[in-house]
């Protein structure tokens, strides 16, 4: 196992050196050894027909394949920094209780084959991924699906919190025909979203394939109506920019973007998964009283208050009146307390206490500053931070606990774990997090 990783590091490093046009031979040699991830362009599966986009020119004018790993990491760092810079200064205020309608355009244009196999299929695939990601990041939020077909908007699923039911409903309805109507969809969604509680954030996300809209009335009025109801409308277009969409997004505070290809579409769709900070101003802040029921032991028999029948195992107990309910989240039938499962809430806490981006430790700064001693292994995963030549590899350091991490851990920690293992494993950090929360 260790050997494998050595090679990988080796490979990446070799390439970096190569960019500086220092040791070309070493690179070639190591490419032969590489274990599949650092494939040469001609060895990769023939995936897309834009292979020229994977090339770049180096200083001496030679064509080089883009180094994916370093590039990926650099991209990720940029994203991280932009996120953190937007949130520093002011405290994070995000709308975590969201009510989102996804409007899928299933007009004739969705059958176009410029996305393979067709726009419709690609959109459905991305929505599926989005729905799962959305519920992961936004507990207590709800999604509804609306389709536009033959100039009519139709509600596919009502607002709900179960990803499976949405995905199933969408996959069963993948046919397209007729024209598209932005106004009809807006009207429909507007009616639904007016009924939600005041603290919820109203959002609509259009996945728009058509280049026109075929409306029964004045769409400008509808847009103003949505603006008044504080519905944030965003559009992701699949063909070209249209004025009316742009206007809609501008007016309602949403974002408008056009997907270039499938991976770009994926990025654009997933951008809507984390709660947008701006929409906090749209809803009225409120303190909601909630209970965190305990789960009863397996095999215990009791009468549940929702179905009024005896049930074995599972079930939750309301902390206020001790009545038993079957599922969460719900409202207690007896005392009316809103019952949620606390892990459900906790899923979103990393938005509130994001970990600071780690600082780069480049080999050049190390060589300039010999006093700065680099540890042998990554603090998180114990992977060696030296390449086989005992030269230090690129790594990052946490500004708080001063522990070093490898690039892979850096990404994992910020994208999935949301904990700095270094800060968490020193008791001093308790006081640090305390000040953050005061």
């Amino acid at each position: 196992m260790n050997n494998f990783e050595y090679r990988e590091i080796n490979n990446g490093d070799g390439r970096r050196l190569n960019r500086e046009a220092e040791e070309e031979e070493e690179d070639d040699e190591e490419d032969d050894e590489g274990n599949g991830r650092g494939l040469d362009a001609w060895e990769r599966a023939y995936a897309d027909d834009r292979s020229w986009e994977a090339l770049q020119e180096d200083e001496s004018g030679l064509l080089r394949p883009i180094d994916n790993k370093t590039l990926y990491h650099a991209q990720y760092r940029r994203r991280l920094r932009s996120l953190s810079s937007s949130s520093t200064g002011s405290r994070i205020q995000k709308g975590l209780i969201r009510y989102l309608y996804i409007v899928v355009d299933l007009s004739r244009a969705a059958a176009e084959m410029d996305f393979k196999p067709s726009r419709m299929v690609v959109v459905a695939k991305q929505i599926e991924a989005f729905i799962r990601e959305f519920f992961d990041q936004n507990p207590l939020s709800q999604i509804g699906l609306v389709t536009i077909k033959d100039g009519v908007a139709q509600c596919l699923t009502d607002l709900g919190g179960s990803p499976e039911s949405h995905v199933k409903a969408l996959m069963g309805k993948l046919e397209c025909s007729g024209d598209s109507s932005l106004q009809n969809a807006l009207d429909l969604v507007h009616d639904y979203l007016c009924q939600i509680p005041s603290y919820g954030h109203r959002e609509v996300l259009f996945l728009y394939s058509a280049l026109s809209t075929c409306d029964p009335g004045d769409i400008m009025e509808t847009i103003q109506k949505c603006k008044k109801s504080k519905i944030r409308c965003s559009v992701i277009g699949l063909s070209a920019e249209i004025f009316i969409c742009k206007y809609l997004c501008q007016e309602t505070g949403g974002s408008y973007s056009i997907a270039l290809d499938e991976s770009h579409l994926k990025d654009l769709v997933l951008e809507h998964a984390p709660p947008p900070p701006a929409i906090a101003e749209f809803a009225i802040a409120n303190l909601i009283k909630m209970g965190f029921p305990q789960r009863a032991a397996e095999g215990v028999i009791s009468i549940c208050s929702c179905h009024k029948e005896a049930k074995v195992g599972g079930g939750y107990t309301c902390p206020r009146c001790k009545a038993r309910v079957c599922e969460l989240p719900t409202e207690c039938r007896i005392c009316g307390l809103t019952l949620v499962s606390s892990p459900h809430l906790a899923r979103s806490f990393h938005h509130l206490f994001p970990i600071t981006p780690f600082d780069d430790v480049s080999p050049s700064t190390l060589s300039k500053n010999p006093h700065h001693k680099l540890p042998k292994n990554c603090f998180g995963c114990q992977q060696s931070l030296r390449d086989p030549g005992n030269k230090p590899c690129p790594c990052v350091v946490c500004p708080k606990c001063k522990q070093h991490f490898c690039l892979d851990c850096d990404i994992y920690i910020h994208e999935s774990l949301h904990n700095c293992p270094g800060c968490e494993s020193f008791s001093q950090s308790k006081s640090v997090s305390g000040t953050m929360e005061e």
Partner: protein
Amino acid sequence: MPQVKIIAKNFMDMVASLPAMKLDKLYDNAFICEAILRSLPPLAKKYVLQMLYIDVPVSAKSMQEWVLADGFSKHNVAIDRLIQLRLFTEAVDRKKETTYRLNPTFQINLQKHIIHGGVLPREPMPSNITVRLPSLEDLDAYAAEQWECFLLHLISSSTQGEKTTNFSSSLMKIFQRGLLSQRDKEPPKLTESGFQFLLMDTNAQLWYIIREYITNSEERGLDSADLISFMLELSFHVTGEAYNMNTLTDSQRNVIKDLADLGLVKLQQGRKESWFIPTKLATNLSISLSDTASRKLGFVVVETNFRVYAYSTSKLHCEILRLFSRVEYQLPNLIVAAITKENLYNAFENGIMAEQIISFLQQNAHPRVAERVPSVPENVTDQIRLWESDMNRVEITPAHFYDEFPTREVFDAACDFAREYGGLLWEDSKTMRLVVKAEILMHMRDFLRREKQ
């Protein structure tokens, strides 16, 4: 590769088939206990661990309570295995309930292991005596070379003289038995199982040879149980360390020379002492005990145009590829071949099955294509299967044709008779013609003669 016939006899089956006395003696050796424990199905391992500190018999009923409803088949397999290997002794207690208890020797050995942790079978020699030990890479290369040399020797006994092995020709004959067939004065030909043997992975091949070696050990005056325990012990040595030959018994010293020929160990001579260095083949011995799907770094890339690129310097690989493809050219480290209809037909005639070829290509896929799904292009695998079914499209049955029956009654009676014997292939009542299988010709003849009278 479960479909390969000659591997059907598992090594552990062989151990299990040893007489009870010998089997019990085997468990005196702690390493065998360990190796055998590791070869068990996961659930059986679990049971052993669970029973490790229980000294009284446990009833079968209470053991069943550990299992969920859908795990009963697994449970039975596990229990059967444990009883077969005499790890569990079955007994019926006063209440007429079946009870099991762990083999006491086995139990004590494992308990020791758990308290003391892993120990090595023998201390490696200090490095100041053993200078110039081969590096691990060198050792791997050595092992691979030895093994290949042995295999080449095995399949082509005619090309002798390249590098002779220590094995006596009689022993070699034993290995070749079943793999090669020799008609008088003709050069020996690979049999069906011989081809299948070549397509197996190294570990399976190795075990086949070792198994043959062990089963025939009695003839050479060696105790098979001793041999098994020595082999298993060997697998717990550390690869690349040197071990003194003096620690071995005389018979073991003889055995180890044979093993050196197989590439299991490398023998080296110092100024005063001699030592052996186990290679990876040896330390992997106990691994292949379990019926696991084994993987190693492959070398074959198959393209959609039926081209096969094999990154290998090995002659053996070339020979294997030749079994089912046309080798077009050979570079120092690359063999380029094409899978053609003719070659495949040839292979099918030799008794190789399409699935075997496909699984060979898949298991030896080059790491760069191995991660892809499927690792061998679908059109190639489909075509190989189609070609195989081509071979089976026409089935030839030797038959006899009857015609000009005197009366319809005789014809009908003959038809009924043939049908009764299951030999009727075709009948046409209009023209009164009949085709029957060749096997029933004699009965048919008797019957017709009787009818005539």
